[in-house]
């Protein structure tokens, strides 16, 4: 057994741990925005680590796996930003203990709540 | 690995049943997207990458967009 197999498998295990933590965060967090924080970003790092580990495990595919990782790295912040903006526009409320909502304050100058859909 | 495949098969059935019984149409569209996602993985495990690729293209992007356009056209109280 080659050493790069073991290193790649360990890196994959570390990435899978981050994937698992992201999925755990999506269950435990109280509202949509916090779910997005834990869910779609911990899984980005998990994705990159997992794909790097698998590329190390199978080095002749490293270039192609790198293209997949690049796509994930570029498209993921775009899609999560689009979802967050759409959810705020649709009036998904923040959780109870939230400190401030500067965007809703700026949208309605009287300091009212965000519109419910 | 076979345990993971069996678990994903069961999850596919659960998601499909949930897509049928749910009252919200958008939730049903999202659940249909997840069904095609997992089915695509199962096709890869069954050594059919071409079918999996077609399933990914149709199920993930095209059918979701068409479902959403169709839901847009429905009446307000049915959403």
């Amino acid at each position, binding site marked *: 057994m080659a050493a790069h197999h073991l290193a790649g498998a360990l890196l*994959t295990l570390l990435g899978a741990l981050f994937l698992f933590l992201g999925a755990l965060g999506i269950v435990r967090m109280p509202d949509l925005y916090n779910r997005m924080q834990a869910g779609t970003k911990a899984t980005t790092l998990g994705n990159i680590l997992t794909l790097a580990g*698998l590329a190390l495990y199978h080095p002749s595919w490293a270039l192609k796996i790198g293209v*997949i990782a690049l*796509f994930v790295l570029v498209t993921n912040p775009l899609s999560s930003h689009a979802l967050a903006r*759409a959810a705020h*526009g649709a009036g998904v409320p923040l959780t109870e203990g939230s400190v401030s909502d500067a965007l809703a304050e700026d949208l309605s100058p009287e300091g009212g709540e965000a519109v419910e859909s | 690995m076979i345990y993971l495949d069996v678990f994903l098969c069961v999850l596919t059935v659960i*998601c499909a049943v949930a897509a049928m019984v749910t009252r919200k149409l958008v*939730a049903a569209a999202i659940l249909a997207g997840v069904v095609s996602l997992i089915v695509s993985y199962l096709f890869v495990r069954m050594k059919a990458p071409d079918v999996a690729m077609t399933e990914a293209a149709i199920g*993930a992007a095209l059918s979701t*967009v068409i479902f959403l356009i169709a839901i847009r056209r429905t009446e307000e109280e049915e959403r």
Partner: protein
Amino acid sequence: MADVILELALVLAGIGVLLASYRLLKGPCPPSRAVALDVLTLITIPLLVGAAVMTGRAIYLDVALVYGLLSFLGVVSLARYFEKGV
């Protein structure tokens, strides 16, 4: 040894699929379900690449590539629907 660790990693990702599908089935509002769909896609891409590596055939990577591109389209169209309806 390395194979066992790799399978363990894929099973750990499978538990992640279980947790994310709990949020998908329960999800109080439709945008939460969309976030769960996003997370499920991000977990499934390493599963697909892992299946390709364990089988050893390069054609399986293309499925992960197509999925990574097209699921972005699906999530963005969902976001557009939530914002103003397609």
